[in-house]
């Protein structure tokens, strides 16, 4: 089953009109980040006929709740449902113990488009915080809602929101006897999924280019592993690595010009290489008879973290691009693999064997110390959100692969809505440009 998404075939014109209110105040979250901010997203008004195709307030509500930093209010508990700033009686919301209230209105405009106007109020101080009008394409209300959630999140926390980002993931269906492997893209909340590649042979290890326009992945469709790079908007793709033996584990460099990958060669000795995409020049980074795999770039592009079992079991190492002096960075436990570096470069998310369970753990590289974040038995493939606040990963539930997300402080956990089949290898996109 695949989906064609005409909504996305047209670029979303999100023109941010001049802010209606110039509010420079930033809400102080006096309860600290560990306390969710009580917020009310009032259902948006609609000036068109019938109902709007997307419940914009509900999407914003779900996005903000997903972050774990906001506690939205149940609509049924709202005593008033204003849609215009003039109708907002802040004392009502104060009584309902809301710190922030959001109202909005959707208006059809010329050219089959909508205009979403929204206003955010600081209930406690009795002040408007922000007000904007966003024109969006008629079929893109959902993207508009994600964008509004991003704007509110950033205004209130100082951290860019991630609700306009996407995830890539792999599914395998075995229903009709033979397996079918598919590479999907979806909104970060799991909505609007679409297949971008599929095969009867395994597809694995998707990796986003830093500009979010391309995805590298491994496909066995030719009978051997090959690294592909596919342009998302056009579906155009090319094989960038087809050496004898294993071609695997692609990882884009932060500047997008290089791809770290793993080659096994005829003798099957897995080593990490860096491929310069423009001229296809290949440079070897590791040199050891053990398995060296799963490269992940440090944000400065100067070093690579990777998995190696040179000390017996798999552990994480760090090496400069010249390959000199690889240094071991994990010491706790006998299984630490598939590192992913946080956007600030200070933490590693990895797969850690915790008393027989494979779990997602976070290594603080400044202070040391490994913190187990997930609770499953076979958790794998952690991937940071671009703002570093959440980690998405694959886990098993009822014998089926599903996706989960956990905040990096371990407090918020979320199961991601998914399609049918076995779901695995989620990768969070970079920020939408």
């Amino acid at each position, binding site marked *: 089953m695949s989906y064609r998404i005409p909504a996305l075939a047209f670029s*979303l014109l*999100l023109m941010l009109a001049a802010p209606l209110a110039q509010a420079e105040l930033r809400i102080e979250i006096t309860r600290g980040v560990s306390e969710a901010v009580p917020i009310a997203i009032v259902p948006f008004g609609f000036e068109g006929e019938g109902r709007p195709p997307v419940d914009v307030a509900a999407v914003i509500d779900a996005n903000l709740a997903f972050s774990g930093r906001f506690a939205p209010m149940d609509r049924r508990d709202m005593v008033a449902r204003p849609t215009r700033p003039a109708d907002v009686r802040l004392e009502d919301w104060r009584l309902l113990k809301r710190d922030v209230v959001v109202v909005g209105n959707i208006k059809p405009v010329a050219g089959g488009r909508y205009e979403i106007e929204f206003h955010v109020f600081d209930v406690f101080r009795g002040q408007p915080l922000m007000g904007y009008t966003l024109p969006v394409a008629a079929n893109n209300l959902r993207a508009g809602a994600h964008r509004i959630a991003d704007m509110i999140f950033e205004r209130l926390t100082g951290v860019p929101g991630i609700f306009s980002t996407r995830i890539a993931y792999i599914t395998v269906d075995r229903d009709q006897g033979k397996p079918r492997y598919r590479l999907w893209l979806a909104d970060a909340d799991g909505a609007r999924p*679409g297949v971008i590649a599929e095969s009867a042979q395994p597809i694995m290890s998707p990796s986003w280019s830093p500009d979010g326009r391309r995805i590298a992945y491994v496909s066995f469709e030719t009978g051997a592993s090959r690294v592909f790079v596919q342009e998302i908007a056009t579906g155009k793709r090319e094989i960038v690595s087809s050496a004898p033996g294993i071609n695997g584990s692609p990882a884009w460099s932060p500047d997008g010009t290089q791809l770290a990958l793993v080659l096994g060669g005829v003798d099957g000795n897995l080593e990490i290489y860096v491929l310069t995409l423009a001229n296809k020049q290949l440079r070897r980074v590791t040199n050891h008879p053990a398995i060296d795999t799963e490269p992940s770039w440090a944000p400065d592009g100067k070093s690579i973290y990777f998995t190696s079992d040179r000390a017996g079991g798999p552990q994480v190492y760090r090496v400069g691009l010249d390959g000199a002096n690889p240094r071991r960075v994990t010491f706790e436990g006998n299984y630490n693999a598939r590192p992913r570096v946080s956007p600030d470069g200070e933490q590693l998310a990895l797969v850690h064997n915790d008393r027989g369970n494979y779990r997602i753990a976070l290594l603080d590289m400044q202070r040391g110390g490994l913190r187990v974040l997930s609770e499953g038995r076979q958790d794998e493939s952690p991937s940071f959100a671009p703002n570093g606040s959440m980690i998405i990963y694959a886990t098993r539930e009822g014998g089926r692969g599903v996706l989960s997300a956990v905040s990096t402080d371990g407090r918020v956990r979320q199961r991601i809505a998914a399609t049918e089949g076995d779901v695995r290898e989620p990768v969070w996109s970079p920020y939408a440009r």
Partner: protein
Amino acid sequence: MSMQKLAILLISAVLVAGCAKKTKPDDEAARVAGSGADDGFVTQPLTEDELYAMGRPVEGEFGAIDAPQALAGQTIIYFDFDSSAIRAEYTQSLAGHAAYLVENSQATVRLEGHTDERGSREYNIGLGERRAQAVRRALMLQGVRGDQITTVSYGEERPAVTGSDEEAWAMNRRVEIVYLR
């Protein structure tokens, strides 16, 4: 094909091309917006032709043929957890494969290495390869030429048995010896 049909095809091709253009981001708009403008993506699954643009796999799963009759039923070698050591029980059947390959010097095999589902996926590709290489070395020690053997590791991606228990895992830690045409 009639001219009319050709014309229709050409027109639809132009239309499709026109639509495709719209999937590209409007750079100007994106810049003005300075926003998380969403430029869409192609969600059509690739056609067979696109999928196999680099060469269509040969029939019978990439050239696989039946194993020689005397060796049929001995084409799977199972491994212990976290191990690529070939258990003693397979010495005889591996000797049989080696003898056949030495005698039939034009014959070739593909060794497909697999792991169970536990642990990280690319690392498991490495472990599956290690198992395939162990079998390759065992065959070469008995005189099989290196160019008669290719290896491929599927890691945990192609389990023989689904399930998350010891029994399923043991059935999935394996190397399959596949004869090629």
